[in-house]
């Protein structure tokens, strides 16, 4: 049984149909990356998993238990096992609490009165490689990288089985970004954590994710093992995303595939394949609606896929 099983998740904010049926699974200890542009619904997916965004249809099963639409009372004990890392590292820490209070707050919320909060704070800070005296600091006294690590410490407090990380490296300098990714990789191995990471930074995905899903307008358009998706993207959108990744080499002239125009409005979803109007490889057949098809663990929603015939 998968640790997390998301099936046909749908979310609308009024007329805006943000998630149009998202399905994926995460196994224990696995890292799954959701990749997509702004407005693709990435954040809504993980907020819906954590019960922080509404989901009108579909199912979210954690350890076999349905949690979509569950009451706050049912969800609270479950939140011990599902921790969230928010996108804005400083903004997600209350400015009036010390780091000690912030990272031990989960124990208070869960009513774990027997814990020695000072000792726990020390242990958690050590786990994320921050000195113990940071417990007395306030968020404004931290750099962006340090605030991120406090976010990791807080997420780890209750020894969760699953971490939901929203853009864990956004806004970090390159030299610090590596540190955070190393830390997350290390903790994952030591603690056997599963993670869902959402990001638009493909360079990050390559180094942390076992599997990845590409989200476009609230639907997965491709999914597979990270290596396979990077080496043999089959959906034109994936290919465009990969080719839009500038390389730190002035002589690298990528075979860049330009995307046409802007993402369409969610209020007026295009007919047929929703990527058709921006797709450089669109064909006549693309006016029909593509279905989600899985071949050998590689999922695809495209009627005119690339690399045809290369599938093993």
């Amino acid at each position, binding site marked *: 049984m998968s640790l997390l099983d998301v099936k046909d998740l749908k979310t609308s904010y009024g007329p805006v149909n943000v998630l149009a049926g998202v399905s994926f699974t995460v196994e224990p200890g696995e890292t799954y990356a959701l990749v997509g542009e702004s407005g693709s619904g990435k954040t809504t997916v993980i907020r819906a998993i954590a019960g922080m965004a509404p989901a009108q249809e579909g199912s979210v099963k954690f350890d076999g238990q349905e949690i979509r639409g569950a009451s706050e009372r049912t969800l609270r004990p479950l939140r011990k096992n599902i921790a969230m890392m928010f996108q804005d590292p400083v903004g997600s820490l209350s400015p009036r609490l010390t780091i000690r209070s912030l990272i031990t707050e989960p124990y208070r919320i869960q009513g774990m009165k027997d814990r020695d909060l000072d000792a726990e704070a020390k242990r958690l800070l050590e786990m994320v490689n921050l000195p113990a005296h940071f417990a007395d600091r306030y968020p404004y006294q931290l750099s962006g990288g340090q605030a991120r690590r406090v976010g990791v410490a807080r997420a780890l407090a209750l020894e969760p089985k699953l971490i939901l990380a929203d853009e864990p490296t956004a806004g970090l300098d390159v030299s610090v970004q590596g540190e955070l990714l190393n830390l997350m990789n290390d903790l994952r191995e030591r603690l056997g954590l599963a993670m869902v990471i959402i990001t638009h930074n493909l360079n990050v995905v390559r*180094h942390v994710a076992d599997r990845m899903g590409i989200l476009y307008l609230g639907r997965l358009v491709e999914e597979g093992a990270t290596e396979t998706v990077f080496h043999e993207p089959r959906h034109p959108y994936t290919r465009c995303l990969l080719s839009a990744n500038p390389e730190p080499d002035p002589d690298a002239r990528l075979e860049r595939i330009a995307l046409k125009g802007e993402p369409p409005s969610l209020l007026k979803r295009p007919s047929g394949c929703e990527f058709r109007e921006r797709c450089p490889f669109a064909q006549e057949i693309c006016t029909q609606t593509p279905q989600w098809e899985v071949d050998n663990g590689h999922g695809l929603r495209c009627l005119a896929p690339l690399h045809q015939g290369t599938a093993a």
Partner: protein
Amino acid sequence: MTDTLLEIDRLSVDYETARGDLKALRDISFDVRKGEIVGIVGESGCGKSTLISSILRLTAPNTRFRQGEVRFKGEDLLQLPERKMRDLRGADISIVFQDPMQTHNPVLSIGQQMLDIQHRSKASKADKRARAAQMLGAVGIPDPEARLAQFPHEFSGGMRQRIAIAMALMSEPDLLIADEPTTALDATLEVQIIERLQELQQEFDCAILFISHHLGVIAELCDRVVVMYAGAVIESGDVREIFHDPKHPYTRRLIDCDPGHIKERARVLPTIPGEVPDLANLPGGCIFRDRCDQAMPRCAAEVPPLAQLKEGHHAACWLNHKEAAE
């Protein structure tokens, strides 16, 4: 040199604070030639923002210019009366800011804002409007006439940044300062913006000072690169020199850290351990010494000068000095 547009000459800028003077920029020198794209790379706290605000003289009240000149077309901007400076801003030098969501006034239509910034022009309102529409078209906004009536919230982030570029270029400036213009955007839109900037730079023949911490973007867009660390220029040169033959350990490590460089999945990514030094209490010698794995005794004793290694390639590191190696 007649084709030099902007010369930063030994510029030092402090911020007066309760803890003492924060030495935000120290002895910065570099130049931008006409029609050239110069990239400034550096991480948080390296002084990029202080540098831009110093060029435009839009500095905080506790800023103190300690030394040096900012010459634009031969004239020192730091000595210019404020009135003349105002004539320059937005006309000869314009800027595109980082966050496209906050650059525009939310309660005025885009058209109104594009008319407002033509306040210097004597043209009729209809002509100004036509000019605004033409510029929107130039940055690839479809149906520009109709969109002039729309408000900022009706545009996506990528479009808003392109509108900001259109507005910055409207006066046909000689120098465009772009302060991390793609940081807030998705990769696909980032590429659109870079390509657009390249085209427009050709068309308008303006120089661009492009500030970014994204090495991939710098490598793709710029002719020359200035690398800053903790308020000082530590290396500068032709983009190929910098990326293929970096002569300062910080530059080298920074390039190594970029995960875009590492094609195969890595268990452990390279990092630069340590922290940027406290600018209010600078250590003696080389500022990168504490984090440098090649530091020598000399690095603690003397500040390495930004020395020319070959035509157009400067670096501030004792490793490049022959006598040090012996």
